[in-house]
């Protein structure tokens, strides 16, 4: 509330209508497909081909630092229209968004999940997720919040209750909550993940949850299990996509083996933590 003598508002115009942006705040266009057209690499050589993303599909990005992954992601995020150093253009459902659509999607097309992110708010888990659900104006915010909490607990190695403070969650619990919340409540049709921590999150389940959200999912990762879990991998070199690899049958078998190894590692970790012996 403003105090009585807080100063005079000097209105811009007698009736300033809500901007179109604020009216459509909770109705974000969710494309079924997204295309990044072929651009050029650091030596201006043309890229091999367009890359098409579909909702409910996971794409992994691989390549060393400086190979062009970040540039690629920022081309998506900024809705490139031939105006970035790579010359790529982003198409949604096969066509370039017009100026109004671009303006509205700016900063909202892509939700992000990176290793640097922490919860900073001084709130408990339930109140916070409820606040998020209400901000999305979902029909039943209480039920939506419960779904997010249940999903997060299914992913987290150590369960946590609705009364836990956000800032006191462990790394794995925070990550689990961020994944569940993003999958179930985020407004953005595209989700960009920069690694999922190893400790304390069930990766397989996390990916299943994200897939079920019908978002377009892009993961930048050095983790072999995550990379192999993706439907396909984009390999970067010298600022451009060098190859698109779909998962082969042999790789699928390797993925299964690696997943078993991870399960075994978590099992042993949990036993050691609980003070058990392993024989």
């Amino acid at each position, binding site marked *: 509330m*403003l105090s009585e*003598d*807080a*100063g*005079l*508002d*000097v209105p*811009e115009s007698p009736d*300033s*209508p*809500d*901007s179109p*942006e*604020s009216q459509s*705040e909770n109705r974000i266009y969710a494309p079924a497909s997204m295309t990044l057209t072929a651009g050029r690499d650091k030596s201006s050589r043309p890229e091999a081909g367009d890359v098409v993303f579909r909702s409910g599909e996971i794409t992994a990005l691989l390549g060393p630092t400086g190979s062009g992954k970040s540039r690629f992601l*920022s081309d998506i*995020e*900024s809705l490139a229209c031939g*105006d970035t150093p790579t010359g790529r253009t982003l198409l949604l459902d096969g066509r370039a968004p017009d100026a109004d659509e671009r303006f509205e999607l*700016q*900063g909202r097309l892509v*939700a*992000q*999940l*990176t290793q*640097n*992110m*922490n*919860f*900073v*708010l*001084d*709130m408990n888990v339930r109140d*916070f*997720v409820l*606040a*998020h659900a209400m*901000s*999305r104006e979902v029909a039943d915010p209480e039920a939506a919040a419960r779904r997010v909490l249940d999903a997060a607990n299914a992913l987290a190695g150590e369960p946590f209750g609705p009364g836990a403070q956000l800032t006191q969650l462990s790394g794995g619990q*925070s990550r689990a*909550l*961020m994944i569940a*919340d*993003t999958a179930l*409540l*985020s*407004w*953005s049709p595209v989700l960009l993940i920069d690694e999922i921590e190893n400790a304390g999150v069930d990766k397989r389940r996390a990916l299943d949850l994200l897939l079920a959200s019908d978002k377009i999912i892009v993961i930048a990762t050095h983790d072999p299990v995550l990379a192999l879990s993706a439907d396909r991998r984009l390999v970067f070199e010298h600022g451009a996509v060098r190859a698109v690899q779909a998962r082969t049958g042999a790789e699928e078998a390797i993925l299964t083996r690696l997943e078993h190894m991870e399960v075994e590692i978590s099992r042993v970790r949990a036993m050691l933590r609980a003070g058990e012996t392993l024989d």
Partner: protein
Amino acid sequence: MRLITVAGPPSCGKTSVVAKACGVLQGNGQACAVVKFDCLQSRDGDLYRAAGVPVSVAFSGGLCPDHFFATNLEEAFAWGVESGAQVGLIETAGLCNRCSPHIRGALAVCVIDNLMGIDAPEKIGPMLRMADIVIVTKGDLVSQAEREVYRYRIRQMNKRAVIRHVNGLTGQGCAELAAIMAKAPDIDSVTDMRLRFSMPAAVCSYCLSETRIGGRYQKGNVKKAKFAGGVHAE
């Protein structure tokens, strides 16, 4: 010159964002100049110079910084025009959250960061409510969910502003901001333009450098608060 006021709490990322947006504007052939208003000291001059943006820093010293800003606007504008800028930006330290430097007819930008707590958009007051563009920084440090809830709270405080997330470190989002800035109103003179929000009435003894505490030192425009509980109430 196109005129843009940029306000926001200390350390929220104003200089980082403005310097990066100016970089984009200059890259597109638009000359920029920044005037920084501050109280006692600031290293923003160095930061802007390091980023290749012409800058002039003005300190209010013993005066109310907001009044100082208002009384120096014509001169600040004239300096920008003389230095050949097509886009002139004014960065002000958001001090008491009571004031807003925004001017009717100039582009008004408010910068706030994602680390300030969920109630910050409400607390920030007129510099947020009166803004045309709200820039949210430091989203790289918090969860997607917090960014979304924060944005919702900003929207509740300002129904018509364009809200943009910008990373002051990497410059992500600055190209879009620069595109909006490039369309700021082109102004011949600030003379006779009006502030969007009036500044506090002043002129009490403390405005005139009084430092002693106590009723007998208080002269001029003095207002006494009522405190709950009765003991100190009038």
